[in-house]
């Protein structure tokens, strides 16, 4: 019974319906190193400034090169190139007059059909589902934040965002397409399609967003009423 109660409280606390701050006192003026647990007082960082832990050299914080509105712009761009990358051909192959085009989805589908369903799911999750979730969750959280509001379900969305960011592998997929192209270049004539360039741009946009991290969003949102 207490287990159920704790789980319920957790959900309610996550939705901001139960205030648990009576038992746990927040110290927003402090920062603890995630890698060696050393504690420091925070001070404002100028744009582009990097704060490293003097003991273990882990990154403690980053001065915002990219404010939330900039992050929102990049994420919107990422959504456009993500859609483009998924509907366009990655490459066109020409083998003695026979043409085939391939999209990400076709590759995953044919892997599924050839009996490696788990591998197809793995590729579909890391190259499609998780990157899409990263983009949608960022849009969901950032759009109201730019307008100075905190979206409903901000906390669960941010926690999900942290998880999917870790398992999103667009950049590895992009490099995989390059290796695959080189591997079959000797056998057939390969023409890169719109898809591969879209994934290239998507990699850059997501990398720029990830460099900004999530702690800045947490800090900005915690100053707003829930």
């Amino acid at each position: 019974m207490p287990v159920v109660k704790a789980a319920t409280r957790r959900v309610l606390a996550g939705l901001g319906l139960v205030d648990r701050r009576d038992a746990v006192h927040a110290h927003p003026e402090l920062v603890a190193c995630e890698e060696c647990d050393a504690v420091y007082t925070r001070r404002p960082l100028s744009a582009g400034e990097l704060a490293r832990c003097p003991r273990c050299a882990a990154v403690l914080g980053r001065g915002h090169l990219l404010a939330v509105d900039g992050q929102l712009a990049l994420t919107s761009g990422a959504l456009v190139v993500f859609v483009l990358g998924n509907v366009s051909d990655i490459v066109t192959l020409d083998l003695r007059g026979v043409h085939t085009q391939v999209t990400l989805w076709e590759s995953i589908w044919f892997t599924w059909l050839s009996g490696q369903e788990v591998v197809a799911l793995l590729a579909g999750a890391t190259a499609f589902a998780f990157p899409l979730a990263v983009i949608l969750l960022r849009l969901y959280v950032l759009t109201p934040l730019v307008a100075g509001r905190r979206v409903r379900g901000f906390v669960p969305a941010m926690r999900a965002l942290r998880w999917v960011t870790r398992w999103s592998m667009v950049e590895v997929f992009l490099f995989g397409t390059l290796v695959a192209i080189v591997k079959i270049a000797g056998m057939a004539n390969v023409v890169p399609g719109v898809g591969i360039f879209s994934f290239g741009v998507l990699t850059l946009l997501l990398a720029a967003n990830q460099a900004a991290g999530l702690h800045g969003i947490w800090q900005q949102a915690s100053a707003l009423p829930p």
Partner: protein
Amino acid sequence: MSSVVPTTAVSTAAPTAVSRGLLGCECCGLVSEVIRAAGTPRCPRCGFALHARKPQSLQRTTAYLLAAAVLYLPANTLPIMATASAIAGRESHTILGGIIELWQTGSWDLALVVFVASIAVPILKIASLTLLVFTARRQSRWRQVERTTLYRVLETVGHWSMLDVFVVVLLVGMVRFGAFASVEPGPGLLAFGGVVILTMLASASFDPRLIWPEFSIDD
């Protein structure tokens, strides 16, 4: 690397959060002081469970590592794909075979990249995490900065081993010329994907703060 330190240390001795009765949130980074909590205290900002150290970190890391090491053998001995063509017939390819093929066809640079991503990174990851678990268990104070850096590198490069999985999936999609030429994924690919996922889970389970046991209060 640490010549410029733009944070103000609370004191030169750099006390740990634990030694001051504070807990840093692994999810949102907020530092909290637990005054009272019935069960596991939760972060007041994001609701994530607060721990001084990740629970059962070394046990979980070891379990994932063992599973990854077991799968490493079939991942490298079973074929990750099979090609069939009118000219060359049916051929099976292992990871190492694919690298040798790239090398022989003159793409030594790509061969090197695939070698690093598919062979070197998984082996170095398993070996490095074993070293980290072993030294953390002994509460070693040997080369703590280097060990923390090693962990950071592992976290950064870990997912790049998925490269070969994507290469095969794409080749399966690209090479569909019926009797002329086709590519099929092999059972080694599943084992290889398993190794990548398990080593990523292993490094996520390891708590780098265990490299710094001086001020620890538990375990």
